[in-house]
């Protein structure tokens, strides 16, 4: 189906099902229960899962296939974001032109950075990309403030000279981002028993784009072009003597992944029209590297899983404060309750970084192939059940044969 083989079709079908049902899957706990803290099914976080998923999928096309480790991809996301906001300021609040322009600008910028950085390989390449991104960040934060609005981030104002559309609405506020009239904030809520599910228009736009992005990534992985990218990673010497020019292949992968980053940046501002300079900082570039490795480098589904885990920690764990802990453990005798809270507290709330660091270490120590390998191992436990079951994970990460 869709030009995919059986296993990929199954994988794609699963991803479609999960993304479409995410508002339900991510809200497994009734609103009133203590565990509702762990619900992630609210629009902003769901959008973030999907947007960073796109970012990581794109990064994986470069890193997973060619092995070139870019430490500056956040710069493309940032450039995409700025371009997107400017499009909304100048042209229209419809997100489509903004997203298209984001992708184009990020593509052009990555072409420039890639053209220069790809003259080197290995860690020298990594440092070149890092240097470009850090320069972009520093300049955006300071000297380029007229374009980027520096520290605060580029945002819409009440007197933007919008060509198609109004500067402000009748009631004096900034118009909302929309997709041909459907506001990104719109949506409806479904209340069922104690459960509450939010279906948000913005999320479904992001989800649709994620599915397209994921599908394109599968096509690339399975194409002769994808095989060539794997050849770049494997042996450039042999490529060269096999009549293939590795440089344009790598550059193409770099630009494609830069455009994915720009797409993610464009979607970010389409959902929330503000572009902050911090999203270009090296820590942001590092984050997408970590997402990819955490999920499983070079696997199709891994980057999405990795980005999900990191964003979940950032947004859910950081919000657990000691009051909530006391609520949870209220059933324990007082002394024990305090003790348990004291033990748990350093790992949540303001300590969420600590937990994330520990997760990084545990995953990489025990699951060298990332989360996907974890899935494979679990699947391995049920190996009696033949193919169908195994496909889910194996398709995602079976070594060279599939990937």
């Amino acid at each position, binding site marked *: 189906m869709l030009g995919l083989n059986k296993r990929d079709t199954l994988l794609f079908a699963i991803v479609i099902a999960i993304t479409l049902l995410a508002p339900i899957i991510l809200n497994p706990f009734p609103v009133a229960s203590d565990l509702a803290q762990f619900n992630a099914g609210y629009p902003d976080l769901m959008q973030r899962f999907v947007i960073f998923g796109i970012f990581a999928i794109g990064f994986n096309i470069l890193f997973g296939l060619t092995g070139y480790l870019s430490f500056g991809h956040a710069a493309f996301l940032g450039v995409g974001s700025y371009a997107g906001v400017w499009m909304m300021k100048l042209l229209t609040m419809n997100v489509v032109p903004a997203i298209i322009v984001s992708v184009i600008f990020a593509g052009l910028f990555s072409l420039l950075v890639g053209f220069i950085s790809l003259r080197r390989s290995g*860690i020298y390449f990594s440092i070149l990309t890092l240097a*470009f991104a850090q320069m972009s960040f520093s300049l955006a934060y300071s000297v380029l403030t007229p374009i980027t609005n520096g520290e605060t981030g580029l945002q819409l104002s009440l007197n933007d000279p919008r060509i198609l559309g109004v500067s402000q609405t009748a009631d004096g506020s900034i118009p909302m981002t929309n997709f041909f009239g459907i506001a990104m904030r719109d949506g409806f809520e479904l209340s069922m028993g104690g459960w509450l599910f939010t279906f948000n228009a913005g999320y479904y736009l992001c989800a649709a784009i994620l599915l397209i992005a994921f599908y394109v990534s599968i096509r690339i992985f399975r194409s002769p072009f994808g095989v060539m990218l794997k050849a770049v990673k494997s042996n450039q010497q042999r490529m060269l003597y096999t009549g293939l020019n590795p440089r344009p292949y790598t550059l193409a992968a770099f630009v494609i992944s830069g455009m994915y980053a720009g797409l993610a940046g464009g979607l970010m501002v389409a959902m929330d029209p503000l572009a902050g300079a911090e999203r270009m900082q090296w820590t942001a570039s590092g984050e997408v590297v970590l997402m990819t490795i955490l999920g499983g480098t070079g696997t199709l589904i891994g980057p999405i899983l990795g980005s999900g885990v990191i964003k979940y920690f950032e947004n859910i764990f950081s919000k657990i404060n000691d009051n909530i802990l006391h609520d949870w453990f209220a059933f324990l005798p007082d002394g024990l309750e305090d003790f348990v809270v004291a033990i748990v507290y350093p790992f949540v709330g303001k300590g969420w970084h600590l937990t994330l660091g520990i997760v990084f270490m545990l995953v990489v120590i025990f699951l060298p192939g990332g989360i996907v390998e974890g899935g494979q191992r679990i699947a391995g436990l049920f190996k009696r059940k033949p193919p169908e079951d195994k496909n889910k994970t194996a398709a995602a990460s079976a070594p060279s044969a599939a990937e």
Partner: protein
Amino acid sequence: MDAIILQVLNGLDKGSAYALIALGLTLIFGTLGVVNFAHGALFMLGAFCAVTLNELLRFSTETVDPSRTDFLGNPLKVKTPYVENWFGPDIGGAMIEWSVPLAIIFSIPVMIAVGIAMERGLIKFFYKRPHADQILVTFGLAIVLQEIIKYFFGANPIPTPAPDAFIGSFDFGALVGMQAGSIIYPYWRLVYFAFAALIIGGGFLFLQYTTFGMVVRAGMADRETVGLLGINIDKRFTIMFALAACVAGLAGVMYAPINSPNYHMGMDFLVLSFVVVVVGGMGSLPGAVAAGFLLGILESFASMSQVVNLLPGINQIIIYLVAIIILLIRPRGLLGRKGVMEG
């Protein structure tokens, strides 16, 4: 002219810190083949050795002074450090005042222990793993280390002053007969520079003239061959790592009086020291030192307002710009060899 001399001094000082961190980093790359993102955290741990010792020495008894009140209107509790009770206010006070130099002695065993624990407990399992895995695990470790420090010491910087004897500045101008006060430089920063020179020089002598050093250098030149020699290379790797940790730690201890340590100072230095190592050439010790000083000096010059007025924002990006230019002109950095970390 004075301005230039001063900026050279600033650059040397900054370069000292870069070079010391980069030295250990490149040593670990070169011998162990490990990309250690936790190296900045080791620098930070060193600085917090100084903080910890300072706080330990200040550990106090409390006596109530009824004549004064605290912010709630209760009688004021006056703190007297134990060391002052034990050794008298003079010696005790001096011990507190000299806590940073004392911390050098305190930090060496601590950092060596940390280094050994890290290498034996974690890093050694990653020698054969891809660099990406090494980055992920050491980055995770760096986060864990700094969060632990944050848990105990908070996020704010903690003042850790140098002994009074080192407060104040040395007047170079007066020394060479120029106008007094035209070229002055703080004593402690000069100490830092001298200290860095000592460590770097000592390190090179050690690697040049000891058997251990020879094995290490051979290892950096050709890891596989040395592995084949097999003369308990494991143990040497551990020692190597501990030494690198120790150098980073000492750099941190000495840095504490220059800028008050905080829990994320390691991350602040991490990226820069990586750039330094790469600009110097992966696995090249002289390269790391040279690049450290070069970038330090260039950074200082780029900060001068004459330069910034000419090229706005140059002070923000100079290090990265220079790194790009050097890497484009010299593919493997200043003194790098072919094939190291290019794959």
